[in-house]
């Protein structure tokens, strides 16, 4: 029962957060100078009268509360509206962009977490091995090197000098670059936690009983690392949104990040509102899920 109440509270809080973000996004967007008519004016030289007429046609001259009500009405009807710049349903644009973002986001997350856990466990079991060195290297790498710098160097080395991979549409380099960044954020803390775990009684006993190292890792160390990795992942996942956006722009990937940026550049309100709301929803859901999983794996904090 307690868990149900906790779950309901989390869901309610998350829903409120999404609503608050939606409201903020809507009104903050209107503060940014210029609207889509200005975009068309710059590109196509509209006269003042033509620009006014266009604003009227698009409903941009309506009072803000009326515009907000129209947007909420669309959302409640399950519609994201139509892109005012491209005259295409926003839902279609988003559906086209989601696969790229999912591949880059999930790919880099899986790569980063796997790398971090591998290095942390290796360094905990064999403190004088290359694993221990790599823990520090990856950690310092993540702190010192911004992903867009690494991405740019990667393009110059692998795409321009070596010619091994394309710049536009390259999916592997972004996954590695973001993955390295994620690994760096996780690995040090995980390593410290596991170092302590290796000297704990149950691991010492298992070693004394001659348990195979792999069995030791899977059944004794991984369960110790999982709650912490999960907790850290929640934080990392939120940051992943920004990292993915940067890489999408750098590598010309048609994902949600570039779609949002495109929307912002073109002051395409329905598009920006939808993508930002979706991103906020994704962050909230991911955080909620990690909380939930954390509770399932390690019920102690909840108790």
């Amino acid at each position, binding site marked *: 029962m307690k868990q149900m109440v906790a779950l309901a509270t989390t869901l309610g809080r998350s829903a409120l957060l999404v609503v608050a973000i939606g409201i903020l996004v809507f009104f903050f967007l209107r503060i940014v*100078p*210029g*609207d889509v008519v*200005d*975009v*068309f*004016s*710059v*590109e*196509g*030289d*509209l*006269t*003042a009268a*033509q*620009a006014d*007429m*266009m604003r009227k046609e698009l409903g941009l001259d309506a009072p803000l509360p009326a515009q907000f009500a129209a947007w909420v009405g669309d959302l409640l009807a399950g519609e994201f509206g139509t*892109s005012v*710049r*491209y*005259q*295409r349903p926003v839902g279609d*644009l988003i559906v*086209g962009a989601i696969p790229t973002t999912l591949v880059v986001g999930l790919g880099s997350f899986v790569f980063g977490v796997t790398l971090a856990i591998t290095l942390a466990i290796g360094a905990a079991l064999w403190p004088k091995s290359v694993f221990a060195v790599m823990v520090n290297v990856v950690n310092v790498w993540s702190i010192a090197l911004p992903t867009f710098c690494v991405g740019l160097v990667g*393009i*110059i080395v692998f*795409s*321009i000098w070596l*010619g091994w991979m*394309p*710049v*536009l*549409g390259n999916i592997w380099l972004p996954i590695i670059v973001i993955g390295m960044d994620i690994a760096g954020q996780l690995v040090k803390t995980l390593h410290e936690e596991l170092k302590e775990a290796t000297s704990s009684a149950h691991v010492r006993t298992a070693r004394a009983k001659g348990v195979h190292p792999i069995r030791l890792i899977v059944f004794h160390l991984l369960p110790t690392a999982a709650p912490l990795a999960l907790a850290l992942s929640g934080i990392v996942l939120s940051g992943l949104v920004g990292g993915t956006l940067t890489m999408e*722009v*750098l590598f*010309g990937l*048609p994902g949600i990040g*570039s*779609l949002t*940026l*495109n929307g912002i*550049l*073109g*002051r395409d309100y329905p598009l920006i509102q939808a993508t930002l709301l979706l991103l906020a929803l994704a962050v909230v859901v991911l955080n909620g899920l990690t909380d939930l999983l954390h509770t399932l794996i390690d019920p102690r904090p909840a108790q």
Partner: protein
Amino acid sequence: MIRLDPIRRRLLLSVAAATLLPLAWPAMADDPVRGGVLRYSTTGLDTADAHRHTGSIGVVQAYAEALTSIAPDGSVEPFLAQSIDVSDDGLEYTFILRDGVRFHNGDLLTAEDVVANFARVRDNVSRGWLSGAMQLVEEFEAVDQRTFRLVMTEPYAPLLNLLSELWILSPQSEGWDGQLVTPIGTGPFVFDEWLPGVRLHAPRFDQYWKAGLPYLDAVEFNLREDIDKALALRAGDLHIASVTRDTLPELRADPNIDIRFMKDTSWNFVSFNNRSPRPPFDNVRVREAVAYALDRPGFMNFVAGDDGVVTNQMVPPGNFYFDQAMHDADRHHTRDLDRAREILAEEGVNPADFKLRAVSWQNPYTQVAVQMVRELGFEIEHLALDDLGAMQRLGEYDWDIAPFGSGPRADIFMRFIRMMSDGPNPGLWGGVQDAEFDSMVTAAVREADPDRRRQHYLDAWQHALDNYYTVVMGHSQGAIVNRTEVRDWDPGFTYAPNWASGGIAHVWLGES
């Protein structure tokens, strides 16, 4: 210097060129190879409804064509029209359509289709260049299967140039009665899969009217605004792309890249707030002093290196509307700070007493121009904003000077109109409000004779110079570069990728 001939002669020559070039092209090239996908990136594509476009004219021409196109020298070429006859009074236009032109759905192009397109633009399009022109159209009709006749209420000189952007589409196109979703044109490539802001896939049209063309299997347009095109070119991800000038040194060093330029120029200028001028710039002599303070050769060297052209005119040397005498009489070609200070002293202006506001985009060249004015002793608050922020701020007219630039145009009128009292996007030129200037430009537009029209435009420009509405810094050409495997390609007058005598229909891919 290119001296354009009167319009009729131009059209006749263009007819010959447009007819013969496609036939001659294969013979001039080294055994064109068929096939391959050209990866191309210049401008974006904001709408599938070509009639409603308000810009982004670097993609549409691939799948939709117009009655006319702009030749690399800036003249008008018949495109879907085989010939064009203009009456002596400049009121009646007769277009004979090419025989055997097919839409992508297989239908033959007829004069009735042209009528339907003109009617759609006249009735449904309320913005952009064409809407102004259509207001002056008295009537149009299909005389027969291949003859389209258009009558204007008054002479309108830019009409044939503007018609290069009135795309002729099949009335069978999906969304014809509202918003076009899938345009069916006559171009060498077909509008296929469009992902807004990302890409347009355009496969070849096998029944294209230029026999044997296009050579390519498809063109993949990269429509993204945020990619580093120079890197993508060097990596081989793009074959043809527009690039910024700052990337040219790295591209010139790459043996796989050819640097080419659009034939029309962009022009840079420093404008004053002409709509609500504030002291001391409400005094024309103070504006003159600023003109003396601007180091235009230095500025153009910064903007375009050795390729920059310093002149005081809207168009560069070689253009029909360029006037050598006016150019030679330019008193501000060389910077003269002493003279600038003398004028300020004569007018009783102590620069230290004034805090000016400059509005610009975030380009480095704007800092250079502002710094030159600062050297006179003015304190300047420089607001360097993004495109839209700058446009909005310009429209508030609470500023003093504005260094800006503007790109290629299909007709000189599109440059003049923006300095007219009710012109579009007037902010870049400080919102000039001058009835005398307006009447001079209007006289030029209504003049059917090219030489007399040129004189009207020159009179208007001299008037603008005398009033120091803006100080032209100079001209430079935009770079559209390509990889060396791209053959038979040279950029045109504007961003258009396809025109009567050239463009991507003629391009093929060879060895690098």
